[in-house]
């Protein structure tokens, strides 16, 4: 399936910050790095469920606000000594508009 759903505009997500997209199955955190890379990952730290969208964004990583686990936004993998992974979702930015694969929403709805 190649359908993409628009979820918002690039400037609606703060630089070095994140916003959430609410789906029936949970929140997806959409990140924008200092260099305008956009990533989407599950908004839930595998350690203790911390909302990753609230963490400090540095380079291509985010630090969980609860216990400082660091995740790579592109792969979803925990960095350093911690082991774990969050789901990542495909996003696409065209003309400043952010799109997410429609199948993400459908999967989430099931």
């Amino acid at each position, binding site marked *: 399936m190649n359908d993409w*759903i628009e*979820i*918002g505009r690039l*400037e*609606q*997500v*703060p*630089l*070095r*910050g994140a*916003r*959430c*997209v*609410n*789906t*029936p199955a949970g*929140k997806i955190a*959409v990140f924008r*790095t*200092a*260099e*305008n*890379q956009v990533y989407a990952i599950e908004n839930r730290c595998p350690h*203790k*469920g*911390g*909302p990753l969208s*609230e*963490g*400090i*964004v*540095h*380079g*291509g*990583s985010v*630090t969980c*606000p*609860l216990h*400082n686990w*660091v995740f*790579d*936004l*592109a*792969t979803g*993998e925990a*960095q350093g000594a911690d082991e774990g992974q969050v789901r990542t979702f495909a996003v696409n930015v*065209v*003309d400043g508009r952010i799109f997410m694969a429609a199948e993400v*929403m459908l999967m*989430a*709805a099931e």
Partner: protein
Amino acid sequence: MKEKLVIIGNGMAPGRALEKLFETDPDRYEVVIFNAEPRVNYDRIMLSPVLSGEKSFDDIVIHGDAWYIKHGITLYKGCKVETIDRVNKTVTSVNGITESYDKLVIATGSVPFIIPVPGVNLAGVVTYRDLDDVNVMMLAAKAKGRAVVIGGGLLGLEAAAGLNEQGMDVTVVHVMPTLMERQLDPAAGYLLGESMKARGIKVMTSANTKQILGDKRVTGVEFADGSVIPADLVVMAVGIRPNVTLAKTAELAANRGIVVDAQMRTSDPSIYALGECVEVSGATFGLVAPLYDMANVLAAQLCGDEKATFTPVATATRLKVTGVNLYSAGDFAEGDDREEIVLRDASAGVYKRLILKDDKIIGTVLYGDTGDGPWFYDMLKRNVDTREMRDTLIFGQNYQGGAPLDPTAAVAALPDEAEICGCNGVCKSKITGTITAKGLTSLDDVRAHTKASASCGSCTGLVEKLLLLTLGDSYNPAAVQPMCKCTDLGHDDVRRLIIAKELRSIPQLMQELEWKTSCGCAKCRPALNYYMIATWPGEYEDDGQSRFINERVHANIQKDGTYSVVPRMWGGMTSPNELRAIADVADKFRIPAVKVTGGQRIDLLGVKKEDLPGVWADLNAAGMVSGAAYAKGLRTVKTCVGSDWCRFGTQDSTGLGIKLEKFMWGSWTPAKVKMAVSGCPRNCAEATCKDVGVICVDSGYDIVFAGAAGLDIKGTEPLCHVDTEEDAIEVIAALTQLYREQGRYLERMYKWLKRVGMESIQASIVRDLEKRRFYYDRFVFSQKFAQVDPWEERVNGKDAHEFAALAEFGVPQAAE
């Protein structure tokens, strides 16, 4: 009979394709070109030097009229094609010329993107795309008026520099926080902005254009924040988009661009397309290198070589502004599967960054010294494994000898007269010579004897390498704990350098202090943000994205992602009205838990993030402000009832507590600050385990500080005794200010005392009244900008994005 090839568009891409075609098979086609512009093919990239006056139009012509005649090409100048008849295989121009084709090539290029604001049609608003635009701008520049260039990308900056050269007063406005953010990382963008300013061009970033003002002619530009800049010329250079109008009219497949495959074929087998108007695998192209690659593929296809295919590769960008050296290529985003090498030379204005993946270069950003750009780019394209030269790679090609070099060897390779310390003019042989002659063994020794690295300290790394070179393994560098992995500097050095070098922003600091990462980490960013606020009150703009979540949304995050909200209760006093408001808020927002805190206030626990502004609005309405229960700043001032009620009370401890809290709230400090005022030595307010405490006695006030009752339990130390409330407030404010200026981020007051010693603190705050006054005045000044209730700001709309989802997708409603 020859096949007939018709080309719509006469830009650089079809020009290159024809050159290739004529090289391979010069007699295969009869060629007809329609050019919407009334001229021959020219080098569009070189329009900027034409605008700045460094070149003329004749200098940038690629194919003169003679070339078209020599190859028997029919060139229709100023003829825009209006329709393509795919059934009869003909094209027709606006002025009625019809030509038939066997093969058709669409190369309509791109059109400037016009931001949809009122006033874009006024006279004096131009785009920057072709020679006509340049001519309009050069004419306008003759009047030497004011120009506003909207767009801080490649095109906008070149236009700005050109207009500046032509004598106009130029302002560049850019919607993003740093210039050229698509090609440069923020550090290089910062340097570029500084260089633009140095040549007299004003730069406004994060600026949203609201409208262009004027009646018939443009008179100015208004921004979303209401500010206005007068302008006689407005250049719109925010970007381009593929020109697909004609292709869409002809019902060829097109999305953003005309859809072509890797052979440059459109959805019609007789029609090809190339250049900025096309889209290959979803990507469009604006730089010349991939367009020339397309031209080669197209020429091969036209000659019958169907194997030729177009593969997009990373492209390099250079800014064509004289005196600005800037180079970027490939993918320079960070990622944890990537490594980066950063070299900064602050005094020379050099920034170099390489991004590596699996030991191969995948991107580079160079500023100031771009000499090695093509070398890096070449290795990027050829996928060269850089493991062998890893340690010296960033120094460039000249440092790559036969054998692998280490960074110390690179320093060893410097000539004797190479300047190491720019501040004090100390060369390499002076340092190595002095180390040997005087038997020096440490960095401090070298600083004392040669002054090298004794001023700004940015050459410390080089001096240490020279010590290592001269002394060998006997050199043991002093262990200064670096702030984090992004720097070798400790907190104290960073604070000293912020003042010494007048560093006023985080990107500036990271450049000048040669940070090893491009945007820091979760450890250094909050620290730097605090140091900036504490050093430059009223000037530095707080960077919310460098704060932990609690300080960014002004509430305390809980384990389930909800928040707790604690309003101030001055000195622990409250009233029926406040309590009613708190009860109403708890009911209205179904707040699950209400608790009394240890700091004599009330905590509302389990508030949903999206409810925070509503909760605050109701608390504000009852006169309450944020209790800063989340802040590295003043928390509570706990009091007992003192002489108002207590039979033992010696002074009005409640009143003094309220005065202290009202005077000191809002201040940011290295770590949290809790205070208390007890009305007698029985100490019911527990002042002797606080960061600052006051014990009231008959003769006045004993001031104590540096207590803790958390991870460590520690009683306070006595600071001094004062006679009046006024003196008590002055001492406490001065003490807090000294701590604000000396404390390392996250270092509580008791740890600060342990580090600097009681003697130095008493010398500044107790014994020298002038110094005390100095610190007090600085605290008062800083408070002018700090005492803004963050809740009220957010109730009024600040950071609204924090409290709402970007998008909501509900469960689809079942059909009935």
